[in-house]
């Protein structure tokens, strides 16, 4: 779930990924669907250049970093690798909100 930079229209890839296309995106610690939409997040499918190792874990609940006090639900599955974004060979936006 990648945020599109509002100034450039380019995706901002981070270190968190998931592998199930049907993953509940509201359980990834990024907010509900309204917040996902407000942050201009889209579901992106990426093809990586070669094999990449990830750390698999469950997302935790987290407080909104914009200071609203809202808690974003966790509980979903996530894969973490801070350098994986450098290995993105291609990507495709598969869902907008």
């Amino acid at each position, binding site marked *: *779930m990648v*945020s*599109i*930079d*509002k*100034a*450039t*229209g380019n995706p*901002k890839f*981070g*270190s*968190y990924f998931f592998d199930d296309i049907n993953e509940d995106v509201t359980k*990834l*610690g*990024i907010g509900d669907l309204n917040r996902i939409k*407000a942050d*201009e997040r*889209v579901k992106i499918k990426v093809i990586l250049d070669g094999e990449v190792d990830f750390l698999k874990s469950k997302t935790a609940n*987290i407080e*909104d*970093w*914009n*200071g609203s006090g809202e808690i974003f639900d966790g509980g979903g599955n996530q894969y973490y690798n801070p350098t994986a974004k450098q290995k993105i060979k291609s990507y495709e936006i598969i869902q*907008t909100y």
Partner: protein
Amino acid sequence: MKDLKKIIGLILSVKSIDEIINHLGVLIKVVGRINVLKPLEASIENIGLVIEDNIIRSVGITLSETISFKDLIDEFSNQFKWGYNHYDEETVVNFQYNEKLIIRAIIEGYIDETSLIKQSFKRFEIHIK
């Protein structure tokens, strides 16, 4: 700072969306709700408007020059909200400009709140309620 203030002024004005766009740049691409412009001013590196239902919801701005955190708090407020967006790996600082606008300064990576005073920002978002 003058570019940021100019854009805020345009957003708060009664100008139409087309007029606002014409003041800022030329539309070069649309990504979802984001209308990305080629800026008219060289002091603005990138600018995009999030438009939905014919209303500007937010604006994304990258300036060519940075603004110091000290200048931001002098201009907007020393009452700000700091946070770290671990998902997008950015530190964000939110200023409540008025009851309608939030100005968000963004910097890549984790910057501790106590270190903000040493920082300068070139990426901003304006959020309209």
